């Protein structure tokens, strides 16, 4: 592509360094993970998949990966259910105390994680729910919910309220309205909300650290503890894994949005001349 506009050229000139500044520290873990060395070094001395194989052969690391995926699954399912129903329920309604309800939903984004971690830790101990991944997943669901709420709310802004009414007049009950009117419109919001929920959970360290137990150690917690006592390229491998999961998620979302956009584009048709 040729940029002839000098303003565009200037913009590119300025954005490329910013882009590199943002991406390089994250991307650098990939060559480190593929390094042919027993220690974490940079620049890499040669390319090898030994560390990757070692990671997947090590039960401690694979169980950490499983724990992370389990907590993320809990967070995504509960976060999507809570966030989406809250967004639909509050859509287009005004009642006294509504700002307070919205504030409550968004609170986990604002309250410092360490405070939440302490609160959850004490709460789950007091009800005797310790030693499994479930409390960690539930805690992650709480911080994931506001993201789903926000993305769903954003996609609901495009909803024509007459659609709900026309579905009702045609005989649709609440569940049919949800399925045939709300769902198709909030789907992009739900998907990006679910991706947010997933990455929030996969990335979360503080709460997972507070509530960790031998059977419930997530990947970030395992990395954190290993960094102090056992500095191996497996840490770099798990970082590379997290980065690639995040990248794939982002790409999927971009593809989905682009596909949807092209299928909903207005088609200039000759038929309009017929009427």
């Amino acid at each position, binding site marked *: 592509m040729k940029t002839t506009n000098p303003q565009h050229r200037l913009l590119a000139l300025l954005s490329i360094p910013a882009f590199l500044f943002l991406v390089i520290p994250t991307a650098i873990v990939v060559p480190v993970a593929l390094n042919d060395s027993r220690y974490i070094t940079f620049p890499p001395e040669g390319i090898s998949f030994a560390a990757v194989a070692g990671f997947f052969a090590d039960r401690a690391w694979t169980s950490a990966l499983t724990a992370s995926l389990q907590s993320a699954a809990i967070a995504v399912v509960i976060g999507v259910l809570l966030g989406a129903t809250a967004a639909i329920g509050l859509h287009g309604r005004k009642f006294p105390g509504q700002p307070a309800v919205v504030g409550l939903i968004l609170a986990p984004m604002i309250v410092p994680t360490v405070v939440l971690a302490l609160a959850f830790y004490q709460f789950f101990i007091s009800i005797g729910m310790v030693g499994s991944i479930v409390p960690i997943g539930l805690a992650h669901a709480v911080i994931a919910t506001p993201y789903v709420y926000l993305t769903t709310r954003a996609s609901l802004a495009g909803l024509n309220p*007459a659609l709900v009414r026309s579905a009702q007049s*045609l*005989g649709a009950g609440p569940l049919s309205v949800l399925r045939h009117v709300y769902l198709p419109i909030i789907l992009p919001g739900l998907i990006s909300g679910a991706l947010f929920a997933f990455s929030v959970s996969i990335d979360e360290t503080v709460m997972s650290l507070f509530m960790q137990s031998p059977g419930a150690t997530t990947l970030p917690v395992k990395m954190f503890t290993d960094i102090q006592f056992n500095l191996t390229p497996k840490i770099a491998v798990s970082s590379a894994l997290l980065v690639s999961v995040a990248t794939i998620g982002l790409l999927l979302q971009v593809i989905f949005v682009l596909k949807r956009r092209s299928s909903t584009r207005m088609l200039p048709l000759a038929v309009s001349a017929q009427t």
Partner: protein
Amino acid sequence: MTASVISAESIPGTGRAAQGAIELRQVSKHYGDVVAVDELDLTVQPGEFVTLLGPSGSGKTTTMMMVAGFEEHTAGTVLIDGRPVDSLPPRDRNLGVVFQNYALFPHMSALENVEFALRMRKVPRPERRQRAEEALDRVGLGKMGGRKPRQLSGGQQQRVALARALVFNPAALLLDEPMAALDKRLREQMQEEIKTLQKGLGISVLFVTHDQDEAMAMSDRIVVMKDGKIVQSGPPEEVYNHPLTDWVASFLGDTNLIPCTIVERNGEEAVVDLGGLGLAKVRDRGASGENYAVSIRPEHLKFRTRAAAGNGCAATLVSSTNLGATVRHRLTAGGHELQLRELSSDRGTRILPDEELWVGWDADKAQLLVLES
């Protein structure tokens, strides 16, 4: 223009007994202190086309939404076919509704849109597909079933919305300003097609509009609303020719309003004093108020010779404007400004400003009414 493509022939369920009476008894809607609809009594007979006509804020849309069940009324009863429906949600009222911007489901094809009501009624797939295709055929869109709403023109979307509202044989059809988004020519065509369809089906229609021409063209009966109340109701010609108040007269079209005092009231007729224009015989529908006026539509004023019998007065021409099909003359007579409209084809010898003229009107075309403002 293409000929009317909507036909009533291939309709499943045609020939069913006409039904779909809608009745509102003392229905009110309050929003806090604001009264949107005030103790409204309204009946739509089976097979009747009734139009709620009024400016925005007159409560006409609120009234329709209460019939459909989307707005809850504060007081009164709504009956459909004699049965109170106050506690029924919209989906159980069995009314076909066409919304202002059609509200077609954007992610469904035209056919799927039409099928929707049948799907909700658990009609088996082959049958509902067939009925939906028939409904689309009926509105002239048989080949467009696979298109998404955004691939259809405004007029086509309107037809899909109509087919969708009719496919499940509703008790009545509610139309909320369905032509507002169409251009003038298409609007007139759709008016005729909807009217043809309605007559063929014998279905009752409650129609909401602020466009008096549309109301005149389509209705069996016009219900004129203002500030949540009915100000006048009757067949289009009657409401147009015999308005009860100056507000109705002006809302339905151009008119000459001449303030008057009553000399004698005599059943259907009255003798009034038009001030500078002298005494005149006019139609009287018994409206009572403080101040009165006579309304004469511009097309009912005629140039006459002084000798001709009936009401009339001397006038002076101020200006003439050719509007294409008609010519509008501005006149002064007896201290009043008058408008006279005649067909361009009827225009006789060209008259000049300041020329002395005689204008007259038929007694049954002059209506005594109450002056509100």
